[in-house]
């Protein structure tokens, strides 16, 4: 049993990381009061941008890891730029945030494949080489923890975990975090206190775009290896994690690990007979079912931001 867990755990972590960063992005958007169901589309944009940049730069610096890092950075940047569409519609035009998010998903899915087809013909962009898994020296020889967390791992994993720590700090220990949360709970009061609600919400959505773009690109440079025009529902799984984690960073960490582990077990169960005791279908629907159950259980005491989904109208008190 232990060997099995040790076998799977690195894969589960690899799968969890894009989920985690995307859900954290969603956290910033939703805590500022803007629902973002466009996470899936923003991930697609990130995967596309990352693949494109890495593909183009590959000739300049063959097999140099810096290319991958530039790709990730570009993905985050373009994710943020693309999320401006959602921010503009939902913050400035008081549009329905669900419709706007749906439009983001659809535009991202169609436009990226359209552009990719113009460039490569097939609509897929294959990168020559992604990040290689490695064992962290020294740390990987720590008993138990070393085997679980520091073997067969990617450099991106630690970057994202670092971002998680920074997020917790920013959200709960800085002025910006306090203001962001205030805008999601009671924007009128926040405005009365002199906060520019529009600006804060723009920041929230932009961060969600950057993080989701990063998530899509990380997925592409670690386990996917190519851009295919979709991220197979990972963005929606991130949304489920955000809800199941009750809009809190550590809750999200737990939820994404939980869901990542379940999905990984389902994915590898075909090659590992010991895992076939649980039918993969149950493992795959599990995140969504438990999220529904959580919604029911927390329906009275939900930690969802109070003003979520409501366009801000400073004249309304």
């Amino acid at each position, binding site marked *: 049993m232990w060997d099995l867990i040790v076998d799977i755990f690195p894969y589960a972590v690899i799968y969890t990381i894009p989920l985690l960063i995307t859900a954290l992005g969603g956290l910033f958007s939703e805590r500022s009061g803007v629902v973002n169901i466009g996470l899936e589309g923003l991930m697609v944009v990130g995967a596309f941008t990352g693949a494109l940049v890495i593909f183009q730069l590959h000739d300049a610096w063959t097999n140099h890891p810096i290319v991958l890092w530039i790709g990730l950075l570009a993905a985050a940047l373009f994710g943020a730029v693309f999320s401006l569409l959602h921010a503009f519609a939902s913050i400035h*035009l008081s549009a329905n945030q*669900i419709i*706007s998010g749906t439009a983001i998903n659809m535009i991202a*899915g169609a436009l990226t494949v359209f552009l990719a087809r113009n460039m490569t013909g097939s*609509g897929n962009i294959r990168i020559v080489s992604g990040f290689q898994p490695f064992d962290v020296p020294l740390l990987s020889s720590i008993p138990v923890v070393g085997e679980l967390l520091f073997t067969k791992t990617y450099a991106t994993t630690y970057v994202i975990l670092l971002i998680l720590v920074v997020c917790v700090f920013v959200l709960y220990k800085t002025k910006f975090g306090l203001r962001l949360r205030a805008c999601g709970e009671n924007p009128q009061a926040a405005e009365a206190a002199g906060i520019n609600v529009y600006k804060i919400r723009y920041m929230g959505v932009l961060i969600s775009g950057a993080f989701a773009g990063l998530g899509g690109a990380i997925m592409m440079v670690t386990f996917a290896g190519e851009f295919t025009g979709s991220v197979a529902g990972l963005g929606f799984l991130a*949304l*489920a994690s955000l809800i199941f984690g009750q809009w809190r960073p550590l809750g999200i960490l737990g939820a994404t690990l939980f869901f990542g582990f379940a999905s990984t077990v389902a994915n590898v169960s075909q090659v590992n007979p010991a895992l076939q005791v649980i039918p993969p279908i149950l493992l795959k*629907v599990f995140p969504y079912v438990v999220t*529904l159950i959580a919604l029911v259980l927390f329906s009275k005491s939900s930690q969802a931001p109070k003003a979520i989904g409501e366009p801000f109208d400073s004249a309304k008190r």
Partner: protein
Amino acid sequence: MRNTIVSLLAVLFGLLAGALLMAVTGHNPFEGYRYLFEGGMRDISRFGDTLATATPLIFTGLSVAFAFRTGLFNIGAAGQMLFGGFCATAVGLTLDLSKPLMLVCTVLAGFLGGALWAFIPGLLKAKFNVHEVVSTIMMNWIAYWTIYYMVPAYFKGEYLETESRQLPDFASLKSPFLSEAFGGSYINLGIFLAVLAVIVIAFIINKTTLGYELKAVGFNRHAAEYAGIGVNRGIIVSMLIAGGLAGLGGVAEFTGNASNIQIGKLPTQGFDGIAVALLANNAPLGVLFAAVFFGLLYSGRGFMNAMTDVPPEIADSIIAIIIYFAATSILIERLVRKLLRIRADKREQSAEKGRES
């Protein structure tokens, strides 16, 4: 009237954005659009294909529009369509009946499957006030994975693991007579079902007590409750009907346009239904027109791709951009208001001039 103008402008802006996209990527937009529209209606057979492509969109559009009227956002039409289509396919592959009886059974199975998939979010909304957007998104992915594992396990195709067996002729909505009348198009009985659904839904919304009550719930939940309307019952009934409609969309797609069901994708028609409903301003007849328009874009893209080198995804991009413009319709409304005001001002000025002279 104003809503129609806004919708038409959203379409216009979408098409302009599409033209821009083609121009930027080095294609000739005029040529692209010419072949896109020719491909959708050049002859009777292509027009038949357009109608067939529009059929599932009519259903999903009706589904979203109907729920909207009760103030519910059914973003789960994709999952309801998939599950309804799966139920219909399962019935078609299992039972052995004469064609008319079989079609009744598959259509019923599709409706019930879709309705069941929407019933859960409806119940959660009515009983626990769980937001239907979140619950229907979850249901979408539950449907996705259910079909992903159920099809290979029970209805595996002869050659591919990723799709079900072919439906026998007697379980398919395809009709040789209709196909021939349209010059070999893949149009099928689904279109009649869709038109019937438009009429029935228009009747329910406009002429029945149920429709009145559901609309009242949509306008103001609390006022409806105060007037003695069962709000919770209304929410559940509305979701049931919306889900059933989306399920019928699955029947039209998987047992009419296609002849088997594939795994690993959520039908895009579910989300396109949102676009259809938005453009139609949630009116059943509008849904019909909007769906045929989108059907035209989708069915013409193959021809366009064959005649030019514009990638077919331009159609999807245009539709997606139209949704974005529809979502930000406040911009367009401002524009319309401004234009109307300028015209009114001019008329006033000319009237004043007339008086002066």
